[in-house]
């Protein structure tokens, strides 16, 4: 049976925790708005890029297609780019991305493929290294950044491009969490090399004038597309992270409130029981005289 002092301490500590989770929730809400705006601002570029690619890609096919579009003709070595958050305390956000990646890894390994992992974000690395330390090529940390800029995504894109040019892998897949709403973030796997041309974007039938020629444009557009995809993934991730943290912290605040209520009730009961006990002692003492 905990003493009154124990209970008081416990209530105080839960209250302090509640204050922290509440503050975190509000910070996440403010950050979410910014992250969401950034993600929305980046959407037109990615969409235009997609439609331009669809236009170009439809025209170029066969043997003369660039390797970024057609692939290396093999899928033996797979690169998984796993984008996660730098910080925890955001519900199942990190673990659900990692779970999706891990399912993918297991499937590929069963099929006898070689898997390489490039981690973006500390948390994913921490979880993945337990089982897949040998496969992890590198970890890219974005912790110091306040706001993700295109330059950061471009760096990662360049890195992936160099690896591809050196023949270090055949297929690259990007793992991130797509932002739907505050309560719904969808872990997503997206193939970036060879480029996935969306079938929905119908190529226009108009005959284009190209300057310089089609192949040159396509070959400079494709590497850029990778950076853009990475950028989009990072922004979606940032928004998802804040959304996930917001709802996780909301839950935590509510749970703390419930706990405080229960503990306070218990505290009051114990206090009353003690008073009653003391009264009984006094009365029965007086009666005995």
């Amino acid at each position, binding site marked *: 049976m905990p003493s009154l002092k124990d209970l008081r301490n416990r209530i105080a500590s839960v209250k302090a925790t509640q204050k922290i989770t509440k503050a975190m929730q509000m910070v996440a809400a403010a950050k979410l708005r910014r992250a969401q705006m950034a993600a929305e*601002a980046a959407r037109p570029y990615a969409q235009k890029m997609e439609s331009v690619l669809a*236009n170009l890609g439809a025209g170029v096919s066969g043997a003369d297609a660039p390797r970024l579009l057609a692939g290396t003709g093999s899928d033996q070595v797979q690169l998984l780019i796993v984008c996660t958050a730098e910080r925890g305390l955001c519900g199942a956000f990190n673990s659900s991305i990692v779970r999706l990646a891990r399912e993918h890894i297991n499937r590929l390994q069963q099929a006898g493929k070689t898997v390489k992992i490039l981690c973006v974000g500390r948390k994913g690395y921490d979880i993945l290294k337990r089982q897949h330390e040998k496969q992890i090529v590198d970890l890219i940390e974005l912790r110091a950044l306040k706001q993700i800029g295109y330059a950061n995504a471009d760096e990662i894109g360049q890195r992936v491009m160099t690896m591809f040019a050196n023949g270090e892998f055949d297929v690259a897949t990007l793992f991130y969490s797509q932002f739907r709403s505050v309560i719904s973030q969808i872990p997503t796997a997206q193939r970036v090399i060879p480029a996935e041309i969306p079938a929905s974007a119908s190529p*226009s039938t108009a005959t*284009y*004038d*190209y300057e310089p020629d089609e192949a040159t*444009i396509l070959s*400079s557009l494709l590497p850029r597309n990778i950076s853009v995809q990475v950028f989009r993934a990072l922004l979606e991730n940032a928004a998802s992270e804040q959304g996930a943290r917001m709802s996780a912290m909301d839950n935590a605040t509510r749970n703390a409130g419930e706990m405080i209520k229960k503990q306070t009730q218990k505290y009051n009961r114990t206090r009353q029981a003690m008073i009653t006990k003391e009264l009984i002692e006094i009365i029965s003492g007086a009666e005995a005289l």
Partner: protein
Amino acid sequence: MASFPFELVSPERVLFSGHVNSVVVPAAEGDVTVLANHAPFMSAVRPGIVTVDGGKRLFVRGGFLDVNASGLTLLAEQAVPVEEIDREKVATEMKAAEDELRAATTDEARSLASERIEALAAMMGAVRN
């Protein structure tokens, strides 16, 4: 004069969106003026100045322009309105790029640095005029 929709988008934001009469774009093989009802056209873009309706000027670096029936779309890796360019910042960056070029040991690094210098020079030119 007939107007047409024009969109200038960078990965971070949409810089310009609206109906315009004419846009001058520094395309890969020479400056191009796009008017309404231009034939479908796609080109790479040099670092330089985009002039909208003969007035508003924006600096763009690296990108693509796409003219089709629905208007002109310019995808720029980097785009800044000319009035927002900080002359001193460009100068210091220029210096850094030049140092990099001098220090570069591989062909790749050298070409990267000279590319940067070229873009910065175009930016400088934009501020001066």
